[in-house]
């Protein structure tokens, strides 16, 4: 299963959500499918995409918030699982693309390559609604269930360690940040 296939499978269902991604391949691939003002690409600060999603979800309980995380990033902030579990915002879906690799810096294996089970960590941290998927159809159905549910969800998608040719997109980070906030403000004023 490839991350890009997963993103493509759900892309059409992202328009009404607030989406926060990590840096690197996830950001580049989502952007390659077509940027939208409700997408925020956190191009550094590894580990904090899920914390950002938590802040958004707590402050905007009527909005669906999606976080596209990765194994390398989430391993830098495993405490996030316990904080997410503590507040369990029902409008937050935490998707972790686990390619067992720090792909953008040369493919060095992460600890998920040597046995760390992120679904297990999430579950043991208190996120009951956690699952691992290995096929695109299963990813799609897990996503559908998470979006339909009213419970904090964690989906660990085991994907191949392949990514785009380049990690830079033409959207300036600052522009993305202002656009994202403006999008939210225009939504909440309505």
């Amino acid at each position: 299963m490839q991350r890009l296939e997963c993103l493509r499978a759900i892309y059409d269902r992202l328009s009404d959500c607030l989406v926060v991604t990590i840096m690197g391949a996830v950001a580049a691939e989502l952007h390659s499918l077509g940027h939208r003002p409700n997408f925020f690409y956190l191009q550094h600060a590894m580990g904090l995409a899920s914390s950002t999603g938590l802040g958004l979800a707590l402050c905007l309980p009527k909005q669906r918030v999606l976080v596209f995380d990765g194994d390398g990033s989430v391993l830098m902030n495993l405490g996030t699982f316990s904080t997410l579990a503590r507040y369990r915002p029902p409008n937050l879906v935490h998707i972790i693309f686990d390619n067992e690799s720090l792909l953008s810096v040369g493919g060095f294996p992460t600890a998920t390559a040597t046995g760390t089970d992120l679904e297990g960590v999430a579950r043991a941290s208190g996120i009951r609604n956690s699952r691992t998927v290995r096929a695109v159809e299963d990813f799609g159905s897990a996503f559908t269930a998470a979006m339909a549910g009213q419970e904090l969800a964690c989906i660990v998608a085991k994907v191949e360690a392949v990514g785009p040719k380049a990690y830079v997109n033409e959207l300036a980070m600052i522009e993305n940040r202002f656009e994202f906030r403006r999008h939210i403000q225009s939504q909440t004023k309505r």
Partner: protein
Amino acid sequence: MPVSVTNSRVIYEALRQAGVRLMSALPETWLVHLIRQADDDPEMMLVRLAKEEEGVGISAGAYFAGVKSAMLMQNHGFLASINGIVSFAHLYKIPLLMLISFRGSFGEPDPWQTQGGNITEPLLRALGIPFCYLDSAAAIGKRIADAQTLAHSSLQPVALLLTRDLMWEE
């Protein structure tokens, strides 16, 4: 406990007056009354953290959502947050209101706090983070309001150092 209940209340009220609706915190001795007040206040979202750096992401999310927030931490929590401050708040111009208990300075009896006390101000300067002291009850309201005004006009993190003179009553 000799942590000042009175001054903690004044700080909390000033944060409420400044429109703060979300606080992230990791408990430390000087912050206990502030955290309890946040916990008892139905109008306040209190997010208890595993590590202070999470608070940078949470405050950024709150800012995107249009909600004013504050981060309560010890100076060692500030040390633990620096990557997030630089690679998120500075990089993306996110305002943060950081209330940092300034442990390890004059009068500090705990040896383990003293190294952190030595380097707090030099690090704030090195990072280019504007900071000011909360050292007298009379100045609290204005300082907190001013810190928040600057954070939001300059779109950057601003720190207030909570001093022993203010927080501790012997």
